[in-house]
């Protein structure tokens, strides 16, 4: 077969014989490893899946070879070649394929779904290209700190149809971030050809829409890939912003081991087989007189043996122990709790306490920064960031495009890079487009990749402002259902600042829920300590002592609960009000010990009732406090509907003092 020739021109021409051998070796390793894995998979020796990138070795090795060692790569399940060139070992890969305890994902995800962050590869997840915003966030951190790190956000052409990719590349363009977007266009998204994926002739044509440069290159020409990648990375490193590289290539096999790829016609296959990246590389190396065919054969034999040995070894390694699963959901905090004698105070309302907390956190730690819509010059829709843009500037109080998924994902990347990002959602209703990043990336990073993600997502929740169904949700149960994230919901200025400080200092993702009706509630002003202090996450508080009924609530319902308790005290019914303050982790102890005293429990919430926090608390008490109950557990909640606009409807939706009083009287 006639081989298409390749020649060294740019940066690749400066590479030494040893450097070229290392690149060749990584390509050959990928091919032989994936070939072996495919055979094992088809022979029933391997569970899960294999996603061979055979045929794309030049794209993968070339991307990695064009990057610096400290540069970060966010890719897909078909990027083992990049991982190998970045230094991930055969043993690490083998352990992951067998789901072993010491593997990169500790058995929590299989096959090529892993990253080794310390070696510069981000965690691989199945929804693609979900690591793109994470890479963008890492680049953001790099831009802030001047670390010179470039992030590469890689995916196949199919994933470029997603909003996630669009938001990522758009944000990177707007913020001029050091990101290189690479797209390995291997002709098929699983089975779907380019025509069904995008309307432009090329993926790269879309770069114009983001105001960034782009190139289309031969992804099977190792030299061209190295040259263009190197150029793009260095340009980004110098502050010239992101670029897009479309690497046109071809995978020899199907999407996965089970896919015979019958959708590829023979003509196409023949065209690409003449451009086999390894054959072209070998041909060029022989032509240049650098290496001989015998050396290639000898290397292949050595690698084959090494691969077999690594796989056999991995099989014998320890399996993960199910006992560690729950413990490993959250990273332990290693920094001490911030102490404050609280002697210096100032009267603040709820939102002032939040702004004060943000200000002091940013002043105290330059790694703390904020992202969100209209939070900079405009100082936020509710003015929570008042004065902060002027004080800390556009690199720490970042006005983002309308890209909740994009900037929430970017917070994950920035947190991994050592920052403490605080994301503001203009309304917590807009968490829905960000949920993929929160649950796929933020919530799973520590569990699956062993890297903690200290980030806070804050914003206004709750109804009562005549804002209708899209500016009023109480999202606590929606969020709390996902393992791996903390959820806090303060009800007063003191707790608001204290929990914010604790959230920013927590090594895990914290969803910080503010209630917009409390922001400027006149009677909620109180003395708030100046200087940092913390309210411990996971600890509730008895806000009113009582003996007859335990009323558990949080956030905007705490004032309602207190008022109802006051009404009932005049009828000699003594209500104990507990503000749980944190939803996850739930302070079960404070609820159970109060029920032990009162024997009656009512849970009051603004969230809708079905499958909610009230249901969860009810379940906890039914399980662990059953023998202390003197009445069935009551829930006071809105009806199971959306939040309506018309004042008469909204007022009927939100639990009122009268409704709570009436319900509690039932507990006699």
């Amino acid at each position, binding site marked *: 077969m006639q081989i298409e020739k390749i020649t060294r021109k740019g940066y690749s021409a400066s590479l030494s014989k040893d450097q070229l051998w290392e690149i060749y070796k990584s390509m050959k390793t990928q091919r032989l490893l994936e070939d072996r894995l495919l055979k094992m998979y088809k022979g029933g020796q391997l569970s899960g899946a294999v996603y061979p990138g055979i045929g794309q070795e030049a794209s993968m090795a070339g991307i990695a070879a064009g990057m610096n060692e400290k540069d970060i790569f966010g890719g897909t399940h078909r990027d083992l070649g990049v991982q190998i060139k970045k230094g991930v070992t055969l043993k690490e890969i083998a352990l992951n394929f067998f789901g072993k305890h010491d593997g990169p994902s500790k058995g929590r995800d299989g096959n090529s779904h892993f990253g080794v962050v310390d070696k510069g590869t981000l965690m691989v997840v199945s929804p693609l290209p979900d690591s793109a915003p994470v890479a963008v966030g890492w680049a953001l951190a790099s831009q802030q700190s001047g670390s010179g790190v470039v992030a590469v956000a890689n995916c196949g052409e199919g994933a470029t149809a997603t909003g996630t990719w669009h938001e990522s590349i758009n944000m990177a363009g707007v913020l001029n971030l050091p990101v290189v977007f690479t797209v390995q266009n291997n002709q098929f998204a699983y089975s779907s050809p380019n025509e069904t994926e995008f309307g432009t002739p090329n993926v790269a044509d879309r770069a114009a829409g983001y105001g960034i440069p782009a190139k289309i290159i031969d992804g099977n020409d190792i030299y061209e890939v190295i040259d263009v990648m190197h150029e793009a990375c260095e340009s980004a490193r110098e502050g010239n912003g992101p670029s897009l590289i479309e690497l046109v290539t071809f995978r020899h096999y199907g999407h996965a081991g089970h896919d015979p790829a019958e959708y590829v016609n023979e003509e196409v296959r023949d065209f690409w087989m003449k451009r086999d990246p390894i054959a072209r590389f070998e041909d060029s190396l022989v032509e240049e007189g650098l290496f001989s065919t015998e050396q290639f054969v000898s290397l292949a034999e050595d690698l084959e043996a090494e691969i077999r040995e690594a796989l056999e070894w991995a099989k014998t390694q320890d399996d993960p122990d199910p006992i560690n699963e729950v413990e490993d959901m959250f990273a332990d905090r290693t920094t001490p709790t911030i102490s404050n004698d609280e002697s210096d105070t100032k009267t603040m309302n709820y939102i002032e306490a939040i702004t004060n907390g943000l200000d002091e956190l940013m002043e105290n730690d330059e790694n703390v920064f904020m992202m969100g819509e209209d939070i900079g010059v405009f100082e936020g829709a509710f003015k929570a960031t008042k004065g902060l843009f002027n004080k800390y500037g556009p690199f720490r109080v970042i006005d983002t495009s309308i890209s909740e998924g994009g900037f929430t994902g970017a917070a994950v990347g920035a947190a991994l890079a050592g920052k403490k990002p605080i994301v503001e959602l203009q309304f917590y209703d807009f968490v829905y487009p960000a949920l993929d990043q929160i649950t796929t990336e933020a919530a799973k990073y520590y569990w699956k990749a062993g890297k903690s993600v200290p980030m806070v997502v804050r914003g206004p929740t709750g109804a009562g402002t005549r804002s209708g169904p899209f500016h009023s949700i109480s999202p606590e149960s929606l969020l709390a259902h996902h393992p791996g994230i903390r959820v806090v919901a303060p009800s007063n200025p003191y707790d608001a600042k204290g929990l914010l400080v604790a959230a920013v200092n927590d090594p895990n993702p914290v969803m910080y829920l503010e209630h917009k009706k409390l922001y400027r509630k006149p009677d909620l002003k109180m003395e708030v300590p100046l200087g940092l202090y913390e309210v411990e996450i996971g600890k509730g508080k008895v806000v009113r002592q009582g003996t007859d009924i335990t009323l558990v609530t949080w956030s905007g319902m705490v004032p309602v609960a207190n008022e109802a308790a006051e009404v009932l005290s005049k009828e000699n019914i003594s209500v104990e009000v507990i503000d749980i303050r944190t939803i996850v982790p739930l302070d079960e102890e404070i609820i159970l010990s109060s029920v032990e005293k009162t*024997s009656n429990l009512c849970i009051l919430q603004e969230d809708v009732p079905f499958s909610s926090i009230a249901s969860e608390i009810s379940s906890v008490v039914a399980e662990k406090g059953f*023998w*202390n*109950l*003197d*009445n069935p557990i009551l829930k006071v909640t809105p009806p199971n509907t959306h939040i309506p606009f018309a004042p008469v409807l909204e007022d009927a939706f939100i639990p009122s003092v009268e409704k709570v009083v009436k319900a509690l009287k*039932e507990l*006699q």
Partner: protein
Amino acid sequence: MSQIVTMPQLGETVTEGTILRWLVKVGDEVKEDDPILEISTDKVDTEVPSPFNGTVSNLLVEEGETVEVGASLLELDGDKTNTNDTPLKEEPKEETNEENVQDTSPKVAEVQNHNISKTPNEKQNLKLSPVVRKLASEHNIDIEKVQGTGKDGRIKRQDIEKIISSGQGMISTEKIAEQPPQEKEKEMLTKESSNNISRLRKRIAENMIISKQTSAHVMTSIEVDFENIEIVRAKHKAKFKEENGFSLTYLPFISLATVSALREYPVVNSSFDLENGLHEIHNHINLGIAVDLNQQGLLVGTLQEADSFNLKGIARKISETSKLLRDGKYGLDDVSGSTFTISNNGSFNSFLTSPIINQPNVAILSTESVKKRPVVVQAQDGSDSIAIRHTGILSITWDHRVFDGSVALLFLNFIKERLENADWSQELD
């Protein structure tokens, strides 16, 4: 004193019954043994006699309702002279007033005491919360002495705590009173599921399905030469009809031969309970005969102790039982306790039938039509010739869980041998 008449258990396997018709109404005076209602069960439709004297104060179920055995049916304001304050069933015999002794037949309705009016101890009807139960138990509180101050007089935690702190009431060592059963009788009354299916059809349907699900049905058959019987029958037919008022069919012959076969192969005359590991070989032979109710259903009449009959006796018994069943005038004994069943399909001109076993039998015999057919017969000199003879098939469905094909065929061959070779004329002369 109010007393309650409950749904009787008419037969061991009966679990429920349907109220067909009330024969009394509220205010009626009834005397012991007066019929008060008609019920229908799996086994029988029958009248229920009143177990005691009294005035009907309440009918607790409606006509058409199906209720479980033991469910309350009717409330009587009892006659002091004829009733007792405690349930008769639990009353020790020696203390029972002779006058109050009811018919002790187990098929008569049970009587039980029932507090229709509020008893002094209303707290028994109150729900006790978990914490009240716990505290009462921990402190040995006599719950009946606690005054409830909660909603509708409910005993609250505070009420118990008051007792504990006062040191009173901690005298009971009895268990906390169990919550009385909810008024579930009413709720458990289930309506007839469809008006289009008769009770009898429903019963048949259920029994058929249960049988199919229980036994491993296998059918086998054999050809029988009835020529000798036909000769005897032809000879005695007219006289028999004249003397007895009904025709002499093949069935009594087959029945008698079957009884003999059952005595020879007792395993065919048995019941088999796999679940409990019990296989009961019956020492009496109660022969079931399937009786078609003029195409309105099927009942199995029982010839109790069938091995005590001769040919005439069994012929008469079959005829009588069939008539009782068709006229709906049968008693429980006429339809229960069969140990083996014959289904007389030949009377409807069948060729071959595979009947379903009548549980808890382990086999069922089907008679098929007897017809004149060409048969190869051997003369004494050994030569073959074709003769016209009355022949018919006998088939048997048996439960392969209990025995195997050899037994079934030995059993059939025994019957065949008897039918073909017994001296039947002796039975009739």
